[in-house]
């Protein structure tokens, strides 16, 4: 039974890993509708990875950095608003959970890569989707080739890939990967006062994927690689819904 322990005490007792500082700070800042742009700019400017990702989100049409029309954090925030910061704050724990899942469950080091340099998925592939609603509304998509999905599922379940012929088992593992990723970012959002609910994961095979972002939504596309494995994660978010 809880002896009136605080969250910090319980975190220590249960051995929770510390949450990513810049993502928590950013989520807290962006959760206020009167968010201070200067403070947000400082947090992003201090973190080169966040800065790179924000400029990529702010310049979705650019093929490379030389084509960026928006070159500073301040400019990106002024032109794109808080939605693009929120999507960054959400994607950070999500990406960290994905990398940690590969480290702990597969002993594989996933490397984050520029999605523009990744080889696009061709033909039928696996598409996992989780929706979230509440103070923030949007979707998380996880995409990978069927062979990659089979390899990951075999690794996580401890089976030889050739024994894994049932595509439903591969889908179940992909769904659990999505659950782990989104559970981590949901905790981060809820702790910042952005209460939201997750839909159950849905995984299917498709050869046709396109993201239809609603008006005011921001999108971050991420890609990860480890050896022959390549994964795509896309996040769309629209903050401050009244749902």
């Amino acid at each position: 039974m809880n002896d009136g322990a605080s969250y910090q005490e319980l975190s220590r007792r249960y051995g929770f890993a510390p949450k990513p500082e810049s993502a928590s700070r950013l989520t807290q800042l962006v959760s206020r509708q009167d968010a201070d742009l200067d403070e947000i700019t400082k947090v992003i400017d201090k973190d080169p990875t966040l800065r790179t990702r924000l400029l990529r989100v702010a310049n979705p049409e650019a093929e490379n950095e030389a084509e960026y029309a928006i070159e500073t954090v301040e400019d990106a925030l002024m032109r794109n608003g808080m939605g693009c910061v929120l999507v960054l704050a959400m994607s950070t724990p999500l990406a960290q959970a994905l990398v940690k899942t590969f480290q702990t469950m597969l002993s594989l080091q996933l490397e984050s890569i520029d999605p523009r340099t990744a080889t696009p998925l061709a033909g039928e592939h696996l598409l996992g989707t989780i929706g979230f609603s509440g103070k923030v509304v949007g979707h998380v998509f996880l995409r990978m080739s069927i062979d990659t999905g089979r390899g990951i599922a075999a690794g996580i379940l401890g089976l030889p890939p050739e024994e894994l012929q049932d595509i439903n088992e591969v889908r179940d593992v992909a769904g659990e990967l999505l659950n782990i990723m989104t559970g981590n970012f949901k905790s981060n959002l809820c702790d910042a006062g952005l209460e939201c609910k997750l839909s159950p994961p849905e995984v299917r095979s498709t050869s046709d994927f396109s993201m239809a972002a609603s008006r005011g939504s921001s999108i971050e596309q991420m890609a990860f690689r480890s050896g022959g494995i390549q994964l795509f994660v896309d996040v769309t978010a629209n903050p401050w819904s009244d749902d």
Partner: protein
Amino acid sequence: MATKILSVDDSRTIRMIVGRTFKSYDCQVCEAGNGEEGLAAAAREKPDLIILDVTMPVMDGVTMLGKLKEDPELKTIPVIMLTAESGRDNVLQIAKLGVRDYLVKPFKEEQLIEKAGRIVPLVKRPAA
């Protein structure tokens, strides 16, 4: 007598991992796919330990934990939460209902063994 462990998770993947984790120990692992099935399995099997997810269809883990703690015959069964959610409100609510430990996904099998081993006896099976 084998230690009886009940794994309650809507993900077959996690239930398989939990089963594999305890395979080399003298344990009998039974499974349920949601809180409602979990309560029925707990009443039927009287496990020594329950490993419980939070977000599940039909009945979630927090509701199942609350009902478990209201049942005089089941309330003393120790519970380890195994979930990807470690938000402040969730953790405080779950701790208030009463859990022995909390493990955040992703996890290593050794972490689950270590946490379970603090609560129930885990005896290695002799090598075949």
